[in-house]
C-alpha cells in the first residue's frame, strides 16, 4: 500500500468553500476536463445531527498511464463512488471516495476534509491509500502503486488551481446576486 497526503489552505471562508465544492467540476473549472460527469445518487439530512449525506458517481476520462492500461486492461472511462458528509455544527465537509472501475485489481480510497482555519481561511486535507491487489510480482504491484501516487501528485496541483478559479467565480456570482437583490429592493421602495 502507498499513501499520498496533501494539504492546502484556501483564502475563503468555510461556507464559501463548501458551496463552491458542489461546483468544483463545473464549467468554472478549466483544469477538470478529465471529469466528464458528476451524478448525485442519494441525498439526505440526518434528522438527529443535521449532517447532510450525499452519494455521487463521478465519471472520468481514463487517465491511467498507457503502460498501466495495457497491464490492467483499458476502458474509455473510469468511475468513482463518493460519499460526503457536511456537518454544519462542526463546520466540516468530509468526502470519502472509492474507485468503481478496476476495483478487483486496484483499491484507491481517498478522504478529503475541508475545515475552517479561521473566519476567512479553510484547510483542505487529502489522504489517499492506494493498494494494487493483482497477484504477481511485488515489483509490478509497487510500480502500479507508484504510478498512481504520481498521478495523484500531478492532479493535486491541477486540483488546487482549478478550485481557486471556481472559488473566485463563485464569490463573484454571489456578490452580483446580492447586488441584484439590493437593486430590486431599491426599485420596490
Amino acid at each position, binding site marked *: 500500500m502507498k499513501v499520498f497526503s496533501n494539504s492546502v489552505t484556501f483564502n475563503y471562508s468555510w461556507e464559501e468553500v463548501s458551496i463552491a465544492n458542489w*461546483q468544483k*467540476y463545473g464549467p468554472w473549472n478549466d483544469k477538470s476536463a478529465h471529469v466528464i460527469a*458528476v451524478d448525485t445518487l442519494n441525498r439526505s439530512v440526518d434528522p438527529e445531527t443535521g449532517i447532510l449525506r450525499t452519494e455521487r458517481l463521478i465519471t472520468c476520462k481514463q487517465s491511467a498511464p498507457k503502460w498501466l492500461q495495457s497491464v490492467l486492461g483499458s476502458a474509455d472511462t473510469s468511475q468513482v*463512488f463518493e460519499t460526503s458528509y457536511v*456537518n*454544519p455544527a462542526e463546520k466540516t465537509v468530509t468526502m470519502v471516495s472509492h474507485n468503481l472501475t478496476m476495483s478487483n485489481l486496484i483499491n484507491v480510497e481517498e478522504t478529503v476534509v475541508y475545515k475552517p482555519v479561521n473566519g476567512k481561511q479553510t484547510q483542505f486535507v487529502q489522504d489517499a491509500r492506494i493498494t494494487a491487489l493483482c497477484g504477481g510480482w511485488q515489483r509490478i504491484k509497487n510500480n502500479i502503486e507508484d504510478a498512481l501516487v504520481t498521478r495523484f501528485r500531478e492532479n493535486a496541483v491541477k486540483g488546487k488551481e482549478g478550485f481557486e478559479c471556481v472559488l473566485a467565480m463563485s464569490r463573484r456570482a*454571489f456578490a452580483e446576486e446580492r447586488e441584484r437583490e439590493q437593486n430590486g429592493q431599491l426599485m420596490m421602495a
Partner: protein
Amino acid sequence: MSASLAPECNEVKERYDACFLKWYSEKYLRGNGKTDECANMFKDYQKCLKVALEERKIDKLLDEAREDSKDHDSVHLKRK
C-alpha cells in the same frame, strides 16, 4: 454545474442542481435545512438516471460500493 453521464438526463439534472445549490447556500448553511423543496426535481432526475445506470450495468457496482462504505457512515454520521 457538471453534466450527467446520461445526456438525456442533463436537463432534469441541471434543474435539480440549481435548486439544491440555492437551498444549500440560502437555507441549509443558515440552519434552515429541514424542508426539502427540491424533492420533486430530485425524483425526476433519479427516474431518468436509474434507467441509464441499469443500461450501463453500473447499478450493481454501486450496490457493492455502498455496502463497502457502510463503515464510513458510522464514523461520519456520528451514529453510536
